[in-house]
């Protein structure tokens, strides 16, 4: 079976009048359907650049990014991208915010609206659909941002440190929420994070990147011996600490 996402010899650098910054150097990896991949690496190593490239916002200078065997430009709408902050638009209410993507792509058909309403119900936001984003807690805002992304039914979800703007307690519970939502919707996801515990608690595999220009230092399969895996439960798995130490050593 073909992998959902295939990255081959990807290189990218930023250009400015002051000079050239190499961000990614010869990066190759694959993501299978249904997998949850976490990408960790030293800060500023080009993790976000990687996501921007996969999403098609940036064009690779060298190498290829294939989604289900075809270049990403063909399947742009099959990719959902969650940014660091929720970026809910303050002048729209929650309902108008979560339907933003559908509105832009002219997909406001009853079927899609129904799906949105169901997600708002499932994830506890239906009562707040007419509220303004400022009236919601950080966790609720993040869930709204996720529904906005899922509304377009992407095959692949890119998460760029989506919990980094939240305080620690909210962060853990939102991470749990979002993990369960993604598993329930059977989504494939690539999560970029600088939080090692977070990466281990959600990922099936972890990509450890080198410092800039980023290439792959190691890919670690995470196998936790617990019956029903959630991010919170994962943190209690006996192997958790070992993985943490292993990745820590790779990074330092």
């Amino acid at each position: 079976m073909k992998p959902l996402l295939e990255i081959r010899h990807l290189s990218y650098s930023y250009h400015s009048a002051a000079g050239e910054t190499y961000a990614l150097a010869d990066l190759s990896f694959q993501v299978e359907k249904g997998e949850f991949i976490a990408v960790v690496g030293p800060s500023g190593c080009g993790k976000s650049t990687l996501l921007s490239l996969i999403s098609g916002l940036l064009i690779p200078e060298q190498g290829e990014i294939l989604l289900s065997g075809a270049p990403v430009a063909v399947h742009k709408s099959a990719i959902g991208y969650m940014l660091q902050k929720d970026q809910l638009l303050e002048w729209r209410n929650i309902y108008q915010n979560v339907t933003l993507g559908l509105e832009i792509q002219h997909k406001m058909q009853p079927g899609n609206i129904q799906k949105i309403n169901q997600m708002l119900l499932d994830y506890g936001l239906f009562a707040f659909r007419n509220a303004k984003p400022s009236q919601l807690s950080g966790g609720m805002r993040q869930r709204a941002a996720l529904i906005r992304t899922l509304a377009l039914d992407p095959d692949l979800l890119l998460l760029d440190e989506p919990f980094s703007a939240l305080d620690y307690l909210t962060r853990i519970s939102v991470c749990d929420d979002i993990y369960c939502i993604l598993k329930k919707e059977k989504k494939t996801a690539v999560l970029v994070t600088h939080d090692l515990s977070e990466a281990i608690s959600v990922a099936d595999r972890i990509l450890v990147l080198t410092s800039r220009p980023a290439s792959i230092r190691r890919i670690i399969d995470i196998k936790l011996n617990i019956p029903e895996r959630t991010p919170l439960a994962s943190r209690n798995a006996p192997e958790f600490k070992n993985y943490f130490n292993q990745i820590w050593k790779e990074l330092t």
Partner: protein
Amino acid sequence: MLPISKMQQTYLSQIRRHRYRIILIRLFLILAFLFLWELSAQLHWIDSFIFSSPSRVCTMLWKMCQDYSLFYHTGITLAETLVSFFLTILLGLGCSVLLWYQQSVSEVLEPYLVILNSLPKSALAPLLIVWLGANTKTIIVAGISVAIFGTILNLYTSFLEMDPEKIKLIYTLNGTRKDALFKVVIPGTIPLFISILKVNIGLCLVGVIIGEFIGSRMGLGYLIIYGSQTFQLTLVITSIVILCLISLCLYLLLAAAEKTYQKRTVR
């Protein structure tokens, strides 16, 4: 609702008292000014032929009400101001959207806009008269010319200051630059847009008066020039008083619009 504590009550009444005091002092200032003006005119401390007096202004206002010239001239000036104001909004919005859409155009045009913006627009008025004739069209163009360049520059700058992450969001949802404009940039700059409008309405009034000074037989600007040339300074001062009232009303109108908008968005 919770019962209000004593401290909170004192605090609230303090605020209220402070607000009343401000209003009272304001009223006192204007009344004292009018009283002194009238007194010094009555006692011949000042020449009321040159400086006029509140009572003369009131008589003039009453006379102008009776022959309807007050409503006629005020109406003309007001209409010209509003027309040039709306045209400024349309033109300004159109141009700044165009500049945002084609940023290379804005790079090219920026120095010219800056020069045109700082140019004293009254210098253009004589030219406009010759080119367009002594008519209402000229006056409206004069009104627009004062406000337009600042509007374009300010609006364009506020477009550029929009959070780039919000624009990125539109692209991640597979939107185009047009979506970014209509879903993020324009709705996001509405508060700033309204405050630009508040400045603009005054600028349009300035332009209209400049236009009326040199190219009109009607309107408050004409009355001021006519009054000064025929040495009817009471007429000049009366017109200025009316102008003050007009600009106050227009400003209050926009402030009310701003408040309505804020209420609607924040709730």
